[in-house]
């Protein structure tokens, strides 16, 4: 019995480790080669960056010569502002939907989550026209507004489901204490939804940081390029030095990675808290 259990345990870990290698190998390849000289990349793509083949030139040129720092700050601005708007406005709407009864509440509830099923990209043609008419073409504001609109439905859905599962007693006792509805939201509801904030943040942030479609269409200008678009155009010019391309890719990975590591514990807790139901 014990031997059999150990064997099956070993089998499970073999499968999981094998898949881990498959997931990690390509990433390791990028990281390793980003520290190598151009010659070494092509001579020995699998070799470690030690001795002769080590070169920090890629990173140096990315951080100094190119527009990369600008792209980076653009992406960071767009992602952070959108995320704050999605979380705040989403939680506000979810609070209204889960807390109060008012005429049309069911309709608005359904209306606001329709966007989960109907991707905003389908409206691109008219969206571009709208953005141009508003004078927002080639601005970061355009991206922020579009990403906020894109992220709100799933945020509202997750927050509403979660808030409905939370007991009303805390809110009612706050009301008896004479707190205004606004203070109840900021002082009672916001702390309450903390467990699912991570879930909403991760699910909203990844598609924003990594999006290629809207930057390409709404703000392709030099000044407003995001990292994803910048790297895409960078790779397009095949004469550039490979060290720099690989370094820029590695740098583009870091923020999402940090964010994920911060949130990953809460992410699973949030999903299992019943926030994402079938």
């Amino acid at each position, binding site marked *: 019995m014990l031997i059999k259990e150990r064997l099956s345990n070993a089998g499970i870990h073999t499968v999981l480790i094998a898949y881990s290698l498959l997931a990690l190998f390509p990433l390791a390849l990028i990281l390793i080669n980003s520290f190598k000289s151009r010659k070494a990349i092509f001579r020995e793509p699998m070799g470690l960056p030690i001795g002769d083949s080590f070169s920090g030139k890629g990173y140096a040129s990315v951080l100094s010569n190119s527009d990369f720092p600008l792209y980076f700050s653009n992406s960071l601005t767009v992602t952070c502002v959108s995320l704050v708007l999605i979380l705040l406005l989403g939680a506000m709407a979810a609070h209204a939907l889960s807390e109060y009864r008012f005429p049309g509440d069911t309709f608005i509830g359904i209306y606001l989550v329709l966007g989960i099923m109907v991707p905003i990209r389908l409206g691109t043609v008219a969206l571009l026209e709208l953005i141009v008419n508003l004078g927002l073409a080639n601005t970061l504001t355009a991206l922020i507004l579009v990403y906020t609109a894109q992220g709100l439905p799933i945020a509202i859905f997750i927050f509403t489901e979660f808030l409905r599962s939370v007991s009303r007693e805390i809110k009612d006792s706050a009301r008896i204490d004479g707190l205004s509805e606004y203070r109840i939201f900021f002082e009672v509801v916001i702390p309450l939804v903390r467990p699912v904030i991570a879930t909403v943040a991760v699910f909203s942030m990844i598609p924003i940081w990594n999006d*290629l479609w809207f930057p390409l269409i709404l703000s392709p200008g030099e000044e407003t390029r995001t990292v994803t678009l910048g790297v895409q155009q960078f790779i397009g010019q095949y004469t550039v030095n490979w060290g720099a391309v690989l370094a820029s890719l590695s740098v583009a990975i870091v923020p999402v990675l940090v964010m994920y590591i911060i949130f990953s514990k809460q992410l699973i807790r949030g999903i299992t808290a019943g926030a994402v139901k079938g």
Partner: protein
Amino acid sequence: MRTLAKSGTEQTHRTPVRWYILVFLAPATLIYTVFAIYPIIESLRLSLYQAGDGQGIFVGIANYAKLFGEPLWADQFWNAFKNNVLLFVMHMLIQNPIALALAALLSIPNLKGAAAYRTIFFLPTLLSVVVVGFIWQLILSPLWGISPAFMNWLGVGSFFKPWLGLESSALITITLISIWQYVGIPLMLFYAALLNVPEETIEAARIDGLNGWWIFWKVKLPLILPTLGLVGILTYIGNFTASFDLIYSIQGGLAGPDYSTDVMGTFLFRTFFGFQAQLGDVYMGATVASALFFIILVGVGLYLFGVQRRLQRYDS
């Protein structure tokens, strides 16, 4: 929204207007309506117009007739549609079973290193498609990729083919890359659902003499069927819209070789913006987007009224 505020005002003498409801709801509703719902409806409207002198001219369903009637358009449409369907089927047959299997293994109680595995499996999902596309080109390119050398080293060098460059294998290669990247999302959803299966249910099955394998098939799987449905519809929607990014990054706007990886997203992009010799057309772009809208609507409808309803009946 306006009627809501109005009906509130009329009742002022009896109950105080609950302005705070409006304050909580208005910002989200406004941004969402202006930048998500309005553009989609406006695109549907534009699909009924054609370019005229300065303004669009109403043409009814002429654009759709053109899209499905003229071989030049219809061929492209059906080719993209067919590729999307293949993409969807392959994701359902390969990605989701892999995700389910990995999630089942991860959810084994007291598994050592579960958190580490979870993080690793989710890593590719965090990457930008641009990064993913480049990584796999670095691996697969016959000119500067590492596969040829690597396969020689393994002694199977003669099996190497430029998979991304061959019409026969480009789409399946793209699919596998996409699966490599996105397997983390269904995996997380399955994993969370499996963790939510009540401990007592599993314990009862164990007392009945079922082993781990059978507990998964007979007890856990039926309980997570709603999640399977959800993953199915998310795969469907993502496949018809998000697949643009990866294909555009790897194969470019022409979705080569010879349109063999063309999907609705790349087709829409070329139609709307034009590409190389082809001129962009706002109205045909809106028509392609609207056709895509109806395709997604059919899928969502089937899911809501067919799959989900049936699953809920089993569930209760």
